[in-house]
């Protein structure tokens, strides 16, 4: 079995535009386009995951084969260098070989003449936490671009509430994606409750479609995600008192007021609610990467304040 030949699996189609594409700003309200775009993005993510899995498998195969080679080398270092059973190519050094190729390179045949120095992957100063925060809520706004008559919307649309004396907007809900929208007479709309950026956009388009079908010339201008909330669990209890003592310029902890510690991170500008149980809520992000970055920043700090009793 020859190591290190990159495997072109039939699962990698050509010419499907595997490069990530920016979100297209279309003002047309076609739900079909949105759903097709979502499916394409999901397929791209799946393909990227498959590629990563294949690369990992290749690296493992190379490492396993190299270990086999090194053990067979030590056995045959005193024998003739002509190939043993099916193991080609042969290495002429009896150094033990630790090959884990650098991420992103798939080595072909290791050169028999060059000394093999152990190649280890770059180890970061601290390991990544391995925990990914899950998005729980996305708040976004969009401008429908025309004045709306809220009374006709409330009377004709389904699943709508309108109490002008209490609040000057129509509150509308849809089931898929499960979201709530506040629709104002100026034509501006707030969409809350989605679990991902694409779902928030799709939901906002569905609401705009409802308004359009009622006869208003609705457009889809300036869709913007205003806030993203994520949560995760570090799986160990935390000494909040210690954390507030050392990070007092960032933290505020009033157990009589609220059982969680409020940590205001400067970079990225995210607010984290940290609880004794180890659950963490992150909010204030405009993009998903800020949530991930904030959690990677706080995780080593939290590990340092792990409760040991």
């Amino acid at each position: 079995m020859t190591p290190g030949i990159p495997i072109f699996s039939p699962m990698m189609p050509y010419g499907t535009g595997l490069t990530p594409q920016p979100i297209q700003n279309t003002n047309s309200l076609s739900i079909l386009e949105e759903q097709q775009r979502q499916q394409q993005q999901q397929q791209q993510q799946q393909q990227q995951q498959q590629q990563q899995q294949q690369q990992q498998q290749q690296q493992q195969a190379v490492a396993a084969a190299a270990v086999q080679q090194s053990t067979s080398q030590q056995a045959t270092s005193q024998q003739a260098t002509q190939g043993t059973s099916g193991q080609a190519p042969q290495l002429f050094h009896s150094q033990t070989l630790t090959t884990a190729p650098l991420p992103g390179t798939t080595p072909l045949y290791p050169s028999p003449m060059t000394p093999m120095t152990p190649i280890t992957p770059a180890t970061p100063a601290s390991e990544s936490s391995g925990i990914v925060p899950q998005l729980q809520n996305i708040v976004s706004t969009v401008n429908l671009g025309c004045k709306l008559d809220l009374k006709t919307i409330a009377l004709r649309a389904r699943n709508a509430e309108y109490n002008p004396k209490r609040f000057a907007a129509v509150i509308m809900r849809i089931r898929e994606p499960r979201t709530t929208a506040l629709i104002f007479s100026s034509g501006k709309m707030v969409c809350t409750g989605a679990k991902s950026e694409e779902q928030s956009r799709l939901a906002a388009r569905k609401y705009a479609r409802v308004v359009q079908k009622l006869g208003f010339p609705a457009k889809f201008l300036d869709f913007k995600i205003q806030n993203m909330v994520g949560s995760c669990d570090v799986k160990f209890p935390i000494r909040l008192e210690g954390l507030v003592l050392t990070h007092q310029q960032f933290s505020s902890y009033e157990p009589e007021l609220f059982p969680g510690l409020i940590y205001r991170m400067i970079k990225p500008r995210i607010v984290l609610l940290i609880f004794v149980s180890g659950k963490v809520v992150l909010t204030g992000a405009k993009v998903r990467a800020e949530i991930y970055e904030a959690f990677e920043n706080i995780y080593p700090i939290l590990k340092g304040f792990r409760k040991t009793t």
Partner: protein
Amino acid sequence: MAYQLYRNTALGNSLQVILLQFDKAMNSALAQTVRNRVNFRSFLNTYRSCDYLWSFVLNGVEFREVTELNKADEAKIVACDDKNIGSNTTE
């Protein structure tokens, strides 16, 4: 289609007064006198609230009273929300 021309007559006016009295009597009876309780639980198809008037469309609803059980595939509830709380249902 009969003409409503003759409502503004002595007979018509007194009958209209009776109708107003009927409205008041129904409201107070439902608010004070009637004590029956009906439970129901179902899937909510749609809801609407406008001007303190709620309307719901339920699917697969069972109205459960102590004495009897009424089922319906579809039920529309129109509910008024005001100082005197009252509601009426149509099936």
